[in-house]
């Protein structure tokens, strides 16, 4: 079967290449890279200060000076969108990253630890995720007041139970696997089994889920900011830009359109990347068999 093994081997080192070969994954990767660069390089690539007012130049349509036009206070929209990318991705990646880390640890503990601990943790996960997300978010914001930190806390609290449950299920399924038994039989300790043998095999699906969740978080941030419950103005959040543009929809429709485009593209980008990763990472590929 050596030839068969060679033929069906999307080994780990090939993930990047395999992703590039998949049109959807490639599109996702390109979009995500563009947004990441925008976020990282905002201070250098934004043509104007995103919060500098120039009321005389308000509601200008796209022009050579302002590629995306200006808003009701004459602020350059392109600059606001570039800085908005920094804000949107910053919040999304931070919050989902923290939630992912918490979910990973709790999921591994629940899946590999003693049964009584598992029961307690599962109860926590289930009760957390049974709360309706929007009401829960509104409640936390009411208590802590709106702002970036609150937003991150809300997102972490809302999303970690799903991650933890995913990791727990994976861990439970794997903890009876032959290779885990084999490691025990060789005398491997709990730490080695969890970190070297379980963790690498359970993070794949988590990475995919996180990737697919980032657009949800970007939308949530935009939505809450639109409702003035998220990032406080004048910070250039995409939600804020939309919200402000909506007030002047008849006067200057370009504001809403220009603010909507990055939102759509970022959502598509991360979703495509997640889908692409799922196809590529799916454990050990779909090796063909013949006999």
């Amino acid at each position, binding site marked *: 079967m050596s030839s068969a093994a060679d033929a069906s081997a999307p080994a780990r080192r090939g993930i990047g290449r395999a992703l590039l070969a998949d049109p959807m994954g490639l599109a996702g990767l390109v979009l995500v890279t563009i947004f990441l660069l925008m976020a990282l390089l905002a201070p250098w690539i934004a043509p104007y200060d995103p919060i500098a007012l120039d009321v005389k130049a308000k509601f200008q349509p796209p022009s050579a000076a302002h590629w995306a036009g200006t808003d009701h206070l004459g602020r350059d929209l392109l600059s606001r969108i570039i800085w908005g990318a920094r804000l949107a991705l910053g919040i999304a990646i931070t919050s989902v990253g923290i939630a992912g880390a918490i979910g990973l640890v709790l999921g591994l503990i629940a899946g590999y630890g003693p049964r009584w601990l598992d029961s307690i943790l599962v109860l926590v996960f289930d009760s957390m995720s049974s709360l309706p997300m929007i009401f829960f978010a509104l409640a936390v914001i009411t208590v802590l007041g709106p702002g970036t930190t609150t937003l991150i806390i809300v997102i972490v609290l809302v999303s970690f139970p799903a991650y933890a449950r995913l990791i727990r299920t994976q861990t439970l399924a794997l903890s009876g696997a032959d*290779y885990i038994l*084999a490691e*025990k039989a060789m*005398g*491997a300790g709990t730490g080695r089994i969890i970190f070297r043998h379980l963790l690498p*095999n359970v993070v794949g699906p988590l990475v995919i889920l996180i990737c697919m969740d980032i657009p949800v978080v970007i939308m949530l941030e935009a939505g809450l900011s639109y409702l003035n419950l998220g990032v406080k103005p004048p910070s250039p959040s995409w939600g804020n830009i939309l919200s402000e543009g909506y007030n002047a929809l008849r006067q200057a429709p370009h504001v809403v359109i220009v603010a909507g485009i990055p939102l759509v593209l970022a959502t598509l980008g991360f979703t495509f990347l997640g889908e692409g990763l799922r196809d590529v990472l799916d454990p050990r590929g779909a090796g063909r068999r013949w006999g």
Partner: protein
Amino acid sequence: MTGVLELRNLSVALPLGGFFSRARLPILLDVDLSVARGESVALVGESGSGKTTLARAVMGLQHVTGGTVAFDGQVVEGAAGLARLRRDAAMMFQDATASLSPRLTVGYLVTEPFRIHGQPLPDPEGTARDLLAKVGLPPAIARRYPHELSGGQARRVGVARALALRPRLVIADEPTAGLDVSVQAEVLNLMSDLRAEMGLAYLIITHNLALVRHVADRVVVLYLGRIVEEGPTAQVFAAPAHPYTASLIAAEPRPDPRQRRTDLAIRGEVPSILRRPSGCEFHTRCPVARDICRHTAPALAPLGAGRQARCHFADQQQNQQGVKHAVEHR
């Protein structure tokens, strides 16, 4: 005599349903078994006989409800005892590919025992190369992942890893399962070479009798978690003392169309361990069962020359040359 491995009255029972219930389902019952230094012992039985449970119990992967496991003359107790056992005894799993952690390279996997037991590993690549060479694999294999290996290669990697710390005992669960005949022969040759070279003792768990004939000095037959026969391989195969052993030998398909069997050696199935038969537990399938077998359980009785059997009529079975008689004169 102290062997490498000594099991005394080893029993395993699983809790039987119900959170408050104390009922237990016996899987292994009072198994006494020893493996001498450099000896190769085969443990034979159908699925449900408890042979895999026994292997796992020895390695501490299965909670033992009674009896003791002694390794190298010392009863295995506590974390330190278990760690020592797991260093000096190694286990090969039935599904070789599945027993290799999928995201690690073969090179890492075969040297992992050194890392686990904190043994010096100055040159991991060189050590991996040597271990792979010992089982006849090229050094390039070290960079592969388990799913890139063929069945035979994965089996060899399993052997290489088992040998890493120069163990005194290797427990091999169905070492030829799922392999093609030509590859089976290669793996068996490898196992006997390594035994001669390193003075290994083997406990081989299998239902493949051809394998037993080739590699085992002694054979132990399990039925429903009890030893029913034990003895030197050649003698047991020549004249099985227990009708179950005789039936197993007779059931083996022969690769010769001129020796087709005309009648079945054994009928029916292994009874469920939930409903163990009364008396001799084999009487429901035994071709020579009599009244006494239905109500009185025979004891495992010595027959001389290192043999013992759990049958009321062991002496007669042996004299009758078991198989043919029992089968053809039904």
